[in-house]
């Protein structure tokens, strides 16, 4: 007479199966809880601005309220139009951000920054783009610029300036 008779082995198997069942239910419950806290939660405010922080190198300097970052590349003609229309404004740090030194050298008459990592950090699949960054380093606005965009009006809008203040390009190409 062996120790493992039929009823003992069946009950051991049953214990094993119920152990798996408890594990499976636990896993399903955990996923359901996670879903309740995210997608199924009606009060989770998903329709809101994406919070974005830019690296400190792009923050406004002391005494400045915002930085205005013009994300450009060397191939688009709209970039030059945007760069020429960008104004010099007191209290605002205006930066032309480019991926490399060679393209940055084509944009004269203002502060350009050639940094592939910073550029990639901001790039969203389109150039030129205008970013407004506040003193906390948060992106306060982001706009795409096209060939037919009224740049002074757009800048006045994103910087909340009176329209006249931002009119007239001061940059020399």
């Amino acid at each position: 007479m062996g120790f493992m008779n039929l009823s003992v082995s069946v009950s051991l198997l049953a214990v094993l199966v119920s152990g798996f069942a408890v594990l499976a239910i636990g896993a399903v419950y955990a996923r359901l809880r996670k879903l309740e806290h995210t997608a199924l939660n009606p009060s989770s405010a998903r329709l809101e601005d994406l919070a974005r922080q830019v690296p400190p190198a792009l923050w406004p300097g002391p005494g400045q309220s915002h930085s205005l970052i013009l994300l450009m590349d060397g191939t688009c003609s709209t970039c030059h139009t945007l760069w020429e229309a960008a104004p010099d404004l007191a209290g605002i740090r205006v930066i032309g951000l480019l991926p490399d030194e060679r393209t940055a050298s084509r944009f004269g008459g203002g502060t350009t920054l050639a940094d592939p990592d910073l550029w990639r950090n901001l790039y969203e699949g389109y150039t030129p783009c205008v970013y407004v960054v506040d003193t906390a380093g948060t992106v306060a606005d982001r706009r795409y610029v096209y060939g037919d965009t009224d740049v002074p009006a757009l800048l006045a809008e994103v910087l909340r300036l009176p329209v006249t203040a931002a009119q007239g390009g001061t940059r020399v190409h």
Partner: protein
Amino acid sequence: MIQTERISADGARVRINLPEEAGAVAWHGHTRLAGQGPARNYSIAPAGRHRAIPTKIFPGGSGKTYRRMGFDLILYEAADRSNSCLIWAGPYNEATTWFGGPVPKPAVLNSLVTSVTFTDSADGAQLTPRNPVGVQQYGTVVLGIGHEFLLMAKDARAGRDALPNWQGAVIGNSEVWKERLDLDPKQRDALAGTPLEWRYIYASPTSIFTIAFPQRLDSAEFWNKKERDRVTAVMAGLKVEWDS
């Protein structure tokens, strides 16, 4: 001959051959997603088309923009709250869905926004269900709107049932039918005998596409030789391949 490659809303690559006579084309599109709850229509348009909504479509209405990575979410509502829409506005293209009533509750908007992924590129915008289980995407169309023609292309497998059941003419590797446009009597009389009174349906091995030449009769010279040559060139050179 100009070959354009577009990405349809469901991610298929669509190659369209149009002769140079066709002129500039604005690429639009359409798709539908049905899962739990009613099916939702999305129309794709070139970027910036939504700017007509606050002034022309919902004058005096409200609009709100939410910034996302690579696109904006824009919510417009009519002043009398009779209609509203949600737009995924990317740098190249935008997708719009209409609610036909006031802006839905935040919970509904949340689940709508979390249920689809919007991917924009210069070749077309894509809408994909984030969780594809139990969600069907259908009715996907690529629309080319030229100055004087309208091209509608879809996957051959999706449009098979809509084809005429009689045999069409064989042109190249396509079968072609023509169908009389539903015109008002004045237009019908003016266009009688020209190719402009028909819509042409092509069935190629991978795509079913339709071309029509909508006309404005206010121009006296709507059917001169130049126009005739243009229509002939467009018809002769048109080719669509749908690669899904």
